[in-house]
């Protein structure tokens, strides 16, 4: 198996023991922008040829035109689109229509799929579905004391994980900074997760701890609670591993409907959310250990099992199937 990715996290995949190829990303290479799709097409053809690929699984929202050309050029390869759901209502219908170029679609589940109003829903019948996918299973997490020791956190003081993506944390003018200042004022120790692929150092308030580990989810039991954005991976890790969380949905995504995902989770009692991230007084309940315990119990009661193994098994089975020619 070969991973080919546009992500700067490619070395992490390689460190995990997989042969990893990097495809120059449009995001990081302005210089290629007018030629990126022809470049991508050519790069894919070369990868398929070098690695004698029988199956290509594409994980992304937008099937680029360069990808569609590669599909046309390789009718003997099995093409799978790994298409997450929970798109913002009415957004991306043009990408759904590109699904017909693939032989199969795999839809990783979403805890909040019951209220999914996006354009993937009417196309669900075309997809093979598995449970929400996380990198780790519950058994892979370190116990609280070991996790805190690994992160260099002495004692058992109330500790919160803060992962809100972009934004200067060392300024109360920003959402992340306002939340950090509020919690630190309440005596909570703040741990800020820095992406292993971050290109600049984080500016954090004095006393906050920065951790740069992958996968951070292995250490989630170090925290009494979390304040987090609600992207697919973070959301499902926190819910599935029973971490009491206040979600602050990022509304500025192109497709990912974090608001709907979080609202449903709050309605089900597995998490809390901050509809207005500047009203930090709404954070008060999560400081209560009774509330934390109730959230954890509800998470463990309702969260579905990890769909990663089922997805891997299905893809492996597809790869071993002879091509039917259609």
């Amino acid at each position, binding site marked *: 198996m*070969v991973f080919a990715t546009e992500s700067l996290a*490619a070395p992490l995949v390689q460190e995990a023991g997989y*042969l990893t190829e*990097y495809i*120059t990303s449009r995001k990081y290479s302005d*210089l290629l922008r007018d*030629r990126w799709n022809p470049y991508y097409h050519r790069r894919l053809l070369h990868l398929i040829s070098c690695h004698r690929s029988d199956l290509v699984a594409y994980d992304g929202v937008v099937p680029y035109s360069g990808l569609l050309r590669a599909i046309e050029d390789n009718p003997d390869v099995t093409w799978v689109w790994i298409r997450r759901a929970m798109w913002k209502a009415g957004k991306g219908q043009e990408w759904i229509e590109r699904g017909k170029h693939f032989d199969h679609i795999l839809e990783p589940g979403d805890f909040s799929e019951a209220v999914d109003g996006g354009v993937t829903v009417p196309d669900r019948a075309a997809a093979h579905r598995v449970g929400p996918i996380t990198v780790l299973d519950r058994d892979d997490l370190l116990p609280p004391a070991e996790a805190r020791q690994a992160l260099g956190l002495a004692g058992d003081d109330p500790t919160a994980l803060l992962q809100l993506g972009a934004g200067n944390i060392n300024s109360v003018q920003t959402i992340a900074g306002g939340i950090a200042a509020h919690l630190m004022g309440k005596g909570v120790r703040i741990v800020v997760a820095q992406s292993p692929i971050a290109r600049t150092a984080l500016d954090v308030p004095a006393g906050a701890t920065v951790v740069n580990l992958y996968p951070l989810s292995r250490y989630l039991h170090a925290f009494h609670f979390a304040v987090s954005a609600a992207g697919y991976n973070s959301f499902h890790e926190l819910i599935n591993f029973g971490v009491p969380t206040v979600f602050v949905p990022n509304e500025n995504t192109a497709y990912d409907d974090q608001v709907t995902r979080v609202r449903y989770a709050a309605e089900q009692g597995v998490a809390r959310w901050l509809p207005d991230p500047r009203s930090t007084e709404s954070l008060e309940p999560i400081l209560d250990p009774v509330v934390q315990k109730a959230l954890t119990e509800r998470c463990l009661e309702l969260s579905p099992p990890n769909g990663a193994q089922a997805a891997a098994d299905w893809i492996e089975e597809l790869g071993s199937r002879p091509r039917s020619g259609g």
Partner: protein
Amino acid sequence: MSNAIPAVYVVRRAKDVFLRLTHRAWRRMPVSRRSPQRSSIVVDTRPIHVYVALEPTPEQLQHLLSRTARQAGRRRGHIPVIFTDSTDFAAIANTGVVFEYLPDRQTWRHHRPDWPWHDFARERLAELDRCYRPRKTIVVAIPDDVRAF
């Protein structure tokens, strides 16, 4: 009741007429003139130089990155493309250059014992040559077994 047309209506009508006329003029315009101005950073207006840094020392890589970062920020000159097996992706991406990655020798040998790494490196170099058609290829670091072709 006055028969005068309200000022706001006149303004709106004038705006509608203006938009219709300009839209017609726009539709009559040759397509080539309709296109927005292209950015100054367009790959096909400048020659490409490929910098090969395979198994480089940290000093060689650092020197290359500072040199190409300066070049990438210029509007004139050439476009640098770095071809390397270094996994310091964040540092390379920070320079803003295009970079092409080759899995390192040890990793490749582990996963693909059927295909010698130096042969694969040569294949990638040949493909880069076909893909980018560089005006120059500058060798910063290259192992002897890759060079000998």
